[in-house]
């Protein structure tokens, strides 16, 4: 699937920061959304790609898709989980 297949509510770019700020920025952005809304995260491969999806999953959000941009960056499509 491509990015256009998702009904994206908000987008963020976390390629300019390193862990753990990557995760914290993603977390702040997704918590601004309502349950079920979708966040697109532009991030680097390597550590961010390993940690951010896992950590967001642990927080109760659903990672729908990881799309490789083939330039060392990825798009992460995440659905806002339930309010805890």
């Amino acid at each position, binding site marked *: 699937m491509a990015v256009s297949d998702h009904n994206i509510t908000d987008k963020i770019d976390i390629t300019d920061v390193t862990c*753990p*700020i990557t*995760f*914290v920025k993603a*977390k*702040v952005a997704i918590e601004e959304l309502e349950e079920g809304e979708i966040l697109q995260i532009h991030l680097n491969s390597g550590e961010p790609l390993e940690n951010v999806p896992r950590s967001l999953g642990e927080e109760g959000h659903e990672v729908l898709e990881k799309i490789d941009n083939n330039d060392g960056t990825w798009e992460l499509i995440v659905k806002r989980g339930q309010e805890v």
Partner: protein
Amino acid sequence: MGVRIIIAASLRTFTNRTPEVEVQADTVSAALSALTDEYPEAARGLFDENGDLRGFVSIYVNDRDIRTLKGLGTKLSDGDEIYLLPAIAGGACESVISTERMKEVKIEDKEIRRYNNHLQLKEISIKGQKRIMAGRVLIAGIGALGGVVAERLAAAGVGTIGLADDREVLLDGLQVQTIHSSRDIDRPRAASARDRLKKLNPNVTTVTYQDKLSADNIEEIIEDYDIVVDATDSFVTRYLISDACALHNKPDVFGAMYQFEGFVTVLCTGDAPCYRCLYPSPPPAGIVPSCAASGVMNALPGIIGSLMEAEVLKLLTGSGEPLVGKAIRLDSWNLQYRMIHTASDPGCAVCGSAPSIRTVQDIDYEDFCGLREDPDEEPIEGIEAEELARRIMSEEKITIIDVREPHERAIRRFPGTLAIPIGQLARRQKELDPEVDTIFVCKEGKRSILAIRTLREAGYTGPMYNLKGGLENAAQIIFPHEGAWL
């Protein structure tokens, strides 16, 4: 076998408000049966329809949870204490910051970096950090403890920090008051602290109050805040702050230190007592040395101040287990601590069921703490430091009695005096010559007043004078001349 059952405030609706019951029992189970025999209502509070202990009630025997012992079968000995502590008494609190106020806060990109440590924690996270940022906290007393609380809360990102202090930075305080620096000496402590907080975190709004806190201004000041931190070192301000907090429903995060020991608790919120519930009356003036006269080990304010700061964060975020209905006493030198359960006093004059105090204006705090001179009592004559220095220089025949404790005399020597601690004065009054003037000195000029009263009561009739403001005030005047008159 006699054991005492101590009942937390929120369970006392089942025991006709009785805080404590003595029963004869050899196990916890038998003790509870004895309790429910006496107060049948208590059975409904403690046990469910199957007769099982309800989950929200914790039971401690001599401060140990029975779940770590043998449960209800735990054996008891004479003199044991059983605490009944329902979870709600000390459990997680609601945040003092409303959801509306939390939602008004936006976290900017730069703040994500600054506050990432809290944002990563599930227990605080974004909502908690927003509540911290929306929070308004007043800190009373910006010395060793208040300074630690102020610095850490500023770094944490508390939105508005009020700094109430009417004193100035002294060289004498710098060893323990790390918020102030050498270049701040003689500046107002509130202003010095404000500058430090601005450097730590420019996002924090600070408000300084340099007037002495009193019954005339306290209510107006605390009105603007969510939480009050009491880091003062006098009984007058402690009762004043606690009374005002109890009357205006503001949590009072209280901390105190003595040498190596610290005490922290949260007062005036939920099931927590107020300071007056814990201590209905202060010690007589002059008997207990103030913190300023007893020394403090320099690591202690960091430990106790940080514990206080953690309480503020728990109250702001509405997470964790705050010291509500509990207090901690820590001996940092022998590394021992004890958590004690505190309870409000139904008969308390301020927060009890039939309060007699409705406003702080009802109380003369100086008088309550024994600091006001009794008009019927013979007045005590004071002597200024300049006058004492002149009389020493001109070698007049006078007696100077130093009533300070040995460790205080070792810090600031005052030669040519007779050192007699207050406790020995009456017995040693023969050492005084009633034909010459006797001048009493101590650190702050308060214990020396007590010394003169003590001797008067013991029947001494010679002329006695009090060095006004004590040696702390006289240091600049008397000690520069030391070499000249010794």
